[in-house]
């Protein structure tokens, strides 16, 4: 259907104190077809979060345009769902009120319909029966599940995830990675996920961009088989494969070199 397209996108920030400009992103071009899962990886300061915020519509690029299908992105919208690192849940609401927040804001869908949808999505993310629980009583992993449900219930075309699993412990993280792959397969949504972890990027990324800083740009692009494989195999099995280790080493040393370069520059 509609694909996500970045055309010559650049972002320049002005530092108000030193009056200098920083090129956060320079001339980004890519196109993401519907149903593709893109992972973006890179050292800190390479502009990956800036890129995501621009696609979400929170920031306007200084140059270039972003299109979803034929429509140019000018601001945040329901068709691009966001999942944040810390969940960004509304802690004064219960789980179900958080999940149907988007629906309630539209005020079009009937309340009974809402309840059924909430029930369905809580079931999918594995939170059945937690509807009435206050947010602050949930663990970090459960909170991220709520965030996923809250985003997916609005049936967005693209799901943008900003380091969604960054604050979770290793075990919860692995479970959540499976859940994301599962949701991706089940819904067929376009997903863009930003991560710090090379392993996570390899496991989740059907496509993978390794970005480089100063100015932020796409350094290298991969097409990887592991996400597809992860649907049927256990993630731990995949990690043991020789091919997986090979790519991981390659990317790790690439990022290592970049970090070294930054240190040398400073």
């Amino acid at each position: 259907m509609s694909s996500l397209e970045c055309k010559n996108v650049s972002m320049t920030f002005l530092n108000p104190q030193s009056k200098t400009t920083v090129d956060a992103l320079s001339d980004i071009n890519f196109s993401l077809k519907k149903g593709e899962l893109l992972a973006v990886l890179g050292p800190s300061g390479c502009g990956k979060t800036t890129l995501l915020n621009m696609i979400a519509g929170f920031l306007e690029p200084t140059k270039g345009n972003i299109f979803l299908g034929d429509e140019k992105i000018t601001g945040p919208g329901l068709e691009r769902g966001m999942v944040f690192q810390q969940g960004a849940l509304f802690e004064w609401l219960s789980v179900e009120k958080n999940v149907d927040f988007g629906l309630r804001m539209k005020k079009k869908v009937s309340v009974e319909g809402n309840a059924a949808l909430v029930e369905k999505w809580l079931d999918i993310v594995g939170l059945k029966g937690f509807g009435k629980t206050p947010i602050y009583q949930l663990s970090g992993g459960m909170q991220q599940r709520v965030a996923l449900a809250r985003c997916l219930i609005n049936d967005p075309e693209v799901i943008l995830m900003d380091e969604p699993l960054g604050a979770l412990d290793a075990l919860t993280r692995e479970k959540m990675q499976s859940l994301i792959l599962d949701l991706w397969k089940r819904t067929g949504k376009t997903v863009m996920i930003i991560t710090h972890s090379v392993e996570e990027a390899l496991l989740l990324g059907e496509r993978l961009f390794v970005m480089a800083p100063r100015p932020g740009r796409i350094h290298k692009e991969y097409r990887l088989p592991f996400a597809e494989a992860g649907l049927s195999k256990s993630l731990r099995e995949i990690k043991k494969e020789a091919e997986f280790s090979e790519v991981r080493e390659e990317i790790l040393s690439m990022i290592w070199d970049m970090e070294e370069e930054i240190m040398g520059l400073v």
Partner: protein
Amino acid sequence: MFEWLSDNRALVASIIIILCLLSFLVTVLIGLRANFIRPDKEVFGDPERTKGGWYWAICGISALLLIWFYFSWGVGRAYFPDAANEMCQVAKIEEAISPITASLPVNSRYYKSTSLVKRNIEQLDELAREIRLFDYAPDQQSQLLAVIKDIENILASLSNPAFLKAETQKEIDFISNELIFLAEKFDQEYLSFVISSDALLQDPWGTSDVEIPMLPQTKRGIMYDQMSLDVKSLSKRFLKLRHFPEISKVLIEETKEKLTDLKNGLDETSLDEVNQIKLAGFIKYTDRIFKRVDDGNIFPPGVLEEVTASSNYFLGQLDESKGTLALIDIFFLPGQGVVKSKTQCTEQGSARWLPKPTDVVAKFVVLANPNIEAGGGYKGFPLLWWEWVSIGNLVGFFVPDIFVDLLVENYSEHLESGTFEPNFYDKMLFFAQGELNLGYIPFPNGHIWDSLVRVIVAMFFGIILGVPLGIYMGISKFFKSFFDPLIELYRPVPPLAWAPLILTIFGIQDDGKIFLLFMVAFAIMVISARTGASGTQLSKIRASHSLGATNGQILRYVILPNALPEILTGVRISIGVCWGTLVAAEMLAGTTGVGFIENVARTVSDYELIWVTILIMGLLGLFFDIVMRILIARLIPWRGKG
């Protein structure tokens, strides 16, 4: 029931004191025992160690009550109800002998004569030095110096024992002997004295406006009372005592003439205005010192030694005769004991400003009694009660007449028949003006209610106006920059500094006070709402944008609930500050309210009333805070758990 309790305060107090003492001791034991069996896992500094400990709370309250009872002389009154009355009789003697002792080195360092001579000589020396420097009018200068010399001579003549008249010496001997004679009478048998029925009918210690009953209620007290009369007549004789030798009289006459000449000659000098005034000042000052010398109160040294000795002997005998009363005074009536003024005996020291706990409760019961006719309430107004209020009046209070004016086309005119038929609009106006009889409902009233209403109304307006402004200031550049200077300029001014102005503009009725409190609440609410709104996490705002919320929805469903913890904290703080300001504002002006009661109590030095109002304010403040704590726990359970 209350009457009985009120009349038997000493008994009630003694029971309470014993209970306090018991609970203090028992809780200390429980506490010590609990410390011994403390589990080892709680190390020093572990906050878990603070859990529990109700017994220490009871221990603390008991200790506080005991201290209160002790320093307010409550313990003394409970166990020695006659002590104050007897002390009052002793105080009568002390008052009676004070004219004599004031002239002697009793409770002071010098004889009064010595102090007078010392002071006069010092001032004369100083004056002479200044006059010698004033050489514009040599004639007057030398005359003045001569007068000063004369006054010194008068002092010398007064101080010479050789000039003491025999009759003066005789009178001094008489007073001295009489004091010793009276002192011996402390040993007399007083058990045969009969206590008068008037004395028995007096209100007991501390139950009426008269603090301590004046008439003696014990046999020993009668003895002291009679003694005080004897001493009083002796004091009168002492006060009439004058020392005026003939030679001094002559000198005084001469000096008086010289001074008159000097005063008369003042106009004839050729001095300029400044120096004339200066010279007149010298003459006036000399005259003042001279008048202090010629009243006959300066006795030669050694003459009064005898009286000093007998006074000391008398006071010593008085102390000795007190016996156990002296011990009670020291241990149970801390402070300066009982002092008699012209009309009454009063407690001195801590008991003067610290009323006994039972008296405070009794006062509170009187105040809380809603029956005004029976002397309840304060200034014809109950503390907290209810009354029937016309619903029409209430409606008239809330519905402004202007609403009807907006509705109406024509009010009706009077008829040709000379009558008036109200039409629909007239009836609406009656309604808005509260003239329609809609029946009556019970409505709270009283001093406390008035204070509460002021705080609540001010808080209401502070919240509904302050919170929206604060939230907009937290998210909008215009609101922040436009209102920030205004609010930041008026907020730091202490509310009481506004009070005179506000009370002038709005009047001393409720409007002024409510507006003053509103200013306080408004500033705090704006600042807390602003902090809450500007503290919203960016990711939450972004998430709600992504979820399709409009700006208004984000404001209502995200920013407002996110600011709720800060807003509620603001409410809690501003209630406290409003309460404090209110009491001060009521003290400035008005005829109702807790602060008003305290202000009146202050002007009449009614310490019991002052303490009652302090306790009421403390309890109400505590009540507000507990309500807010419960509200906070209910409304924002997520606080501190993110």
